[in-house]
């Protein structure tokens, strides 16, 4: 069963007297091994909330528990060494090599040299960077994406149970960001850290979070639930407007092609008897058939006109199948392929390219309706 690792209890933070609190009486629990995303408009207090956990900001009132232990008082530096911290600006030490940067917390904790050295290589490999190449480089020699990988490696070096991430991929170009997000999800599957992740980007929140807390001003929780539940049942107007008009489309990123019922179109394979093929096509509801090669790999869409054009061999007529989907692709990918396809359908194959069925707009619509 789930177990609470971080607990904020009635925590408030007020700057100066009489000012509106940045965080007002917040109670929040983070379960062991989950990625909890704090998302909200700028100024809602999400970063402040995150920084309350490692006490970079001291709460005005309330208690903070880590693994059942009250950590509101006591040495904040010691607490922070137990918690990984990744920020948007990365903040690598420019005067230290990559290896020294990664060794920061292990050194603070007094690990012995051999253990630290081994850990540096392990961490570099974990974030897919070659230790030989990068150990002795300096941060200025890295690209933004590489720097943030090192930022993550540095935060994980002392193997903390908890990782706090403040818009870690916010300053990175969209293509690299997407890759880092995917790598990070893969890493998390392996490591099962307890992560609190701050972002202002609802799409990132949906992608990264096991649960999402949508915050409004004063760090008040507007809704806290799984991404699926929030998209399907936004709690109020604020959440709805924050999700934006594309909530249904966003929900498609959470579902896979394997979740929907595949549609079977008529298939043809070599050698094709034109008469027979025409009959099959007319008998079905579909306007097109798929031509499969000797390995059952779909290669071309064949319609009646293509069948009637006897000047060309069947394998060369019709339109080519350019993109195919696999069951683990998201329905958003499927929608894109369908919209681009000449026949309004997307072909689904298994990993080896063998034909499984087709994805249609109708089947997609049916799934969305059934979610209601």
């Amino acid at each position, binding site marked *: 069963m789930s177990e609470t690792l971080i607990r904020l209890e009635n925590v408030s933070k007020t700057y100066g007297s009489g000012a509106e609190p940045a965080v007002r009486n917040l109670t929040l629990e983070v379960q062991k091994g989950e990625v909890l995303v704090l998302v909200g408009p700028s100024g809602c207090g999400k970063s402040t909330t995150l920084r309350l956990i*490692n006490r*970079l900001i001291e709460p005005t009132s309330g208690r903070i528990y880590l693994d059942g232990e009250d950590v509101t008082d006591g040495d904040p*530096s*010691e*607490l*922070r*060494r*137990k918690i990984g*911290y990744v*920020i*948007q*600006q*990365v*903040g*690598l*030490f*420019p*005067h*230290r*090599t990559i290896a020294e940067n990664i060794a*920061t*917390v292990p050194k*603070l904790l007094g690990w012995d040299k051999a253990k630290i050295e081994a850990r540096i290589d392990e961490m570099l490999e974990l974030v897919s960077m070659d230790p030989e190449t990068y150990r002795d480089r*300096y*941060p*200025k020699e890295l690209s933004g994406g590489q720097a943030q990988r090192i*930022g993550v490696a*540095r*935060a994980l070096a002392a193997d903390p149970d908890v990782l*706090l991430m403040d818009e870690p991929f916010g300053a990175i170009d969209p293509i690299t960001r997407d890759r880092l997000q995917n790598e990070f999800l893969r890493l998390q599957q392996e490591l099962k850290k307890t992560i609190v992740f701050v972002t202002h980007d609802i799409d990132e929140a949906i992608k990264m979070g096991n649960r999402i807390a949508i915050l409004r001003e004063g760090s008040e929780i507007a809704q806290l639930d799984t991404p699926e539940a929030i998209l399907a049942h936004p709690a109020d107007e604020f959440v709805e407007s924050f999700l934006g008009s594309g909530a249904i489309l966003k929900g498609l990123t959470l579902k896979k092609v394997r979740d929907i019922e595949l549609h079977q179109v008529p298939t043809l394979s070599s050698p094709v008897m034109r008469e027979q093929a025409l009959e099959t096509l007319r008998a079905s509801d579909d306007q097109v058939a798929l031509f499969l090669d000797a390995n059952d790999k779909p290669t071309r869409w064949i319609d009646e006109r293509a069948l009637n054009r006897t000047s060309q061999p069947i394998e060369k007529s019709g339109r080519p199948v350019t993109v195919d989907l696999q069951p683990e692709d998201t329905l958003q990918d499927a929608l894109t392929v369908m919209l681009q396809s000449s026949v309004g359908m997307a072909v689904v194959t298994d990993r080896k390219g063998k034909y499984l069925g087709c994805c249609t707009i109708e089947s997609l619509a049916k799934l969305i309706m059934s979610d209601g």
Partner: protein
Amino acid sequence: MDFLFSLIDFALARQVQVLEGLAQHTGYVVTVLVSAGLFAILTGVVTRRSQLAKELALSIASVFLTIPSLALFVVFIPLVGLGFAPSFIALFLYSLLPILRNTITGLDGIDPGVLESAKGMGFSPVQVLLKVELPLAWPIILAGIRVSSMLVVGIAAIATLVAGGGLGDFIKSGLARLPLPNSLESIWLGTLLCLVLALVIDLILQALRVATISKGIR
């Protein structure tokens, strides 16, 4: 050409005084740079969190630089007498501003993200200062020390007027005997030695720069 030979003759005939003058002059440079360096860096560190304190410290240090050097050497005589002490105090006050200014600039210029991550990883405040802030500000602080070192080499020549010795002795005695024989040689000797000393000190500081600044921020 004749003057050059007579300058060399003049110097060779006074090897002891030359060495003594160089030693005293170098003594000023070293003692002043070390003490003023430490004091200015400490002041920069202590005031770094407060804009007001920074401005105040800079204003005070600027005032010292605007006082005519001759006057600054003399005003402390009633308090500390003649010789090394009033000269040291004057040079100390003169060299504060470049080092203090650069310490403040260097500390201000550190990427806030670096400080945030240092704190966030569990550096104590003292560790943040010693392992992150000062190393990152050091190239700029050292540049300030270089400016001060040049300043001190030049102005230390005035120490002779308050019986503080140094290479200024040659210049003063030459001026006093102008246009008697060897007076010009004396002035030139003092000036050239100051120049050579300045160059050597600059080379040493350059070497210190290479030795103490990480490749990552050079």
